[in-house]
């Protein structure tokens, strides 16, 4: 190892501008950039994020399409599954991005961020944004296979889907952060995800139509936040297909609260609001840890 000290350098101290909103935004951008760098570097994560949705669609979807009648002729089971699988894929990627704060804590990097002269909101906001971009970018790959599932490549449809997915990823990453704030160490991450995220996926109607469910299951679906991502996604997809009214009633039933039909826009507002509240709670929890 070389131990030679460099000849004296004219080290000029740097001057830094005062902190303020601009510096908070810049910090959020920097944290977000790091999330993207890590994602690009870790090819395995990228691949792992794609394997599961492809299995759902083309193995489960194809296998089941022969026994499952989705209530209508000429609607492929994979077509039905497609929006649900997109949300599922985004959900796992986003929740992992949020929960990765546990790794940051365990490997010390969280302290490097927490001791910097910036608000916790910027740090966590940056992580949320990064997680959402990563999750949505992965969904683009799946979205490219829409044609194989009988879904038209309409630019409007694609943009609508991406917008909803991005909103959902933001909220779900925030949820991941909140989980991360509560999970003590890396070993507990997987069990927590298994017990929290998997039920949320199954109870969202991502994998089966929500029409004609037994009361308890219908209720569980309605209080599950993920439903408010899956439902609008599916609605958008089916509005670009020619469904018979009969098929639409089975496959894309109107979401109701005690008989009141919940408007499409309100479903998205609920999704966003849940995300904001979750984010605020997560920030609060991180501020409390001294």
């Amino acid at each position, binding site marked *: 190892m070389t131990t030679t*000290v460099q000849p004296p350098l004219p080290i000029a101290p740097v001057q*830094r*501008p005062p902190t303020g909103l601009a510096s908070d935004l810049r910090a959020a951008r920097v944290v977000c950039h790091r999330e993207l760098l890590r994602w690009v570097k870790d090819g395995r994560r990228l691949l792992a994020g794609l394997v599961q949705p492809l299995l759902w669609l083309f193995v489960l979807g194809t296998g089941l399409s022969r026994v499952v009648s989705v209530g209508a002729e000429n609607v492929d089971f994979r077509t039905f599954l497609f929006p649900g699988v997109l949300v599922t894929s985004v959900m796992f990627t986003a929740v992992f991005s949020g929960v990765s704060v546990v790794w940051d804590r365990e490997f010390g990097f969280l302290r*490097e961020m927490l001791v910097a002269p*910036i608000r916790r909101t910027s740090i966590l906001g940056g992580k949320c944004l990064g997680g959402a971009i990563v999750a949505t970018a992965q969904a683009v790959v799946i979205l490219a296979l829409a044609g194989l599932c009988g879904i038209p490549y309409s630019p409007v449809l694609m943009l609508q889907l991406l917008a909803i997915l991005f909103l959902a990823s933001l909220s779900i990453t925030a949820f991941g952060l909140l989980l991360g704030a509560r999970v003590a160490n890396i070993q507990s991450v997987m069990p927590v995800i298994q017990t929290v995220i998997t039920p949320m996926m199954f109870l969202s109607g991502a994998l089966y139509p929500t029409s004609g469910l037994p009361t308890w299951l219908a209720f569980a679906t309605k209080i599950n936040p993920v439903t408010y991502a899956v439902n609008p996604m599916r609605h958008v997809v089916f509005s670009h297909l020619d469904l018979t009214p009969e098929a639409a009633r089975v496959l894309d039933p109107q979401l109701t609260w005690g008989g009141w039909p919940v408007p499409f826009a309100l479903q998205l507002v609920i999704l966003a609001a849940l995300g904001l509240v979750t984010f605020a709670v997560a920030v609060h929890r991180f501020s409390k840890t001294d």
Partner: protein
Amino acid sequence: MDSESRAAIRVENLQKRFGEVEAVRGVDFEVQAGETFGFLGPNGAGKSTTINMLCTLLRPTGGRAEVAGFDVVSQRNDVRREIGLVFQDMTLDTYLSAGQNLRFHGQLYGVPSDRLEVRMRQVLELVGLWDRRDKDVDTFSGGMKRRLEIARGLLHSPRVLFLDEPTVGLDPQTRASIWEYLDELRRQENLTIFLTTHYMDEAEHCDRIAIMDAGQIVALDTPEALKAAIGTDRVRLEIDDEAAAAAAIKRQFGLEASSVGGALVLQVPDGEHFVPKLLADLGVPVRSVSVTRPTLDDVFMSYTGRTIRDAESAPGSEIPAMFRGRR
């Protein structure tokens, strides 16, 4: 204006209690701007807890502290802007390259982008890592990671640099080189350095040292003054006729010499000036002479009644250092 004359760190009756554990029990000290100040103490003495309070990561349960003129509780962000930190445990992102870690840090601290690249090069050259700036940190050795963390701590030109056991777990060569970098830095920037260590030899690099034991400062002074307070050097003489020499020393100087491991050992206040007199007056042939000054180990011993090693293996203290190496 008067921030120049202000102490870089001012601590009054600072305390921290974790439930039952009183980690820091009321410490007072001041560190002047440009000074290198060391906290020396065994595992569990409360060194890291003190640093974490000074760098705003822990809230004190009593007393107050100012860093760079700002209160560590009510002006957290101002303190954070003025300090650089090297934690006891590694806090690098090993997925990223050295350069990416530094760039992240610089942007987080608001270093303007045109200055950032220049400054990055300067700090990386200072720690001898400029050639490896594009390598991923997980390919770095422990010493290289440590040097990178020191470079990162300096990147945003802090006024006070905190180093929590900067060389723990590193081989002697790497430790020496890190000290070369730090000494070089002190020459170049009017930087205040606050560091903790439990290596006695490292404490000697400091302008002043506080010896900490069980949450309290038991002594605080320059290394020389601390050693001088102990008062005695150790003079070791190899002599053929030890018994005759011991009797002569007793008679002529009134000193008790003891025979230890084939040599005569005696304790005197000023060994270097005593030896010429001794040799002139003794009249017995002497084969060799050595004078050993008291070490900080002796200082710790004299204030706490224990060696650092004893303090660390005492029940209730932390896990032994060897299990806490850095990865």
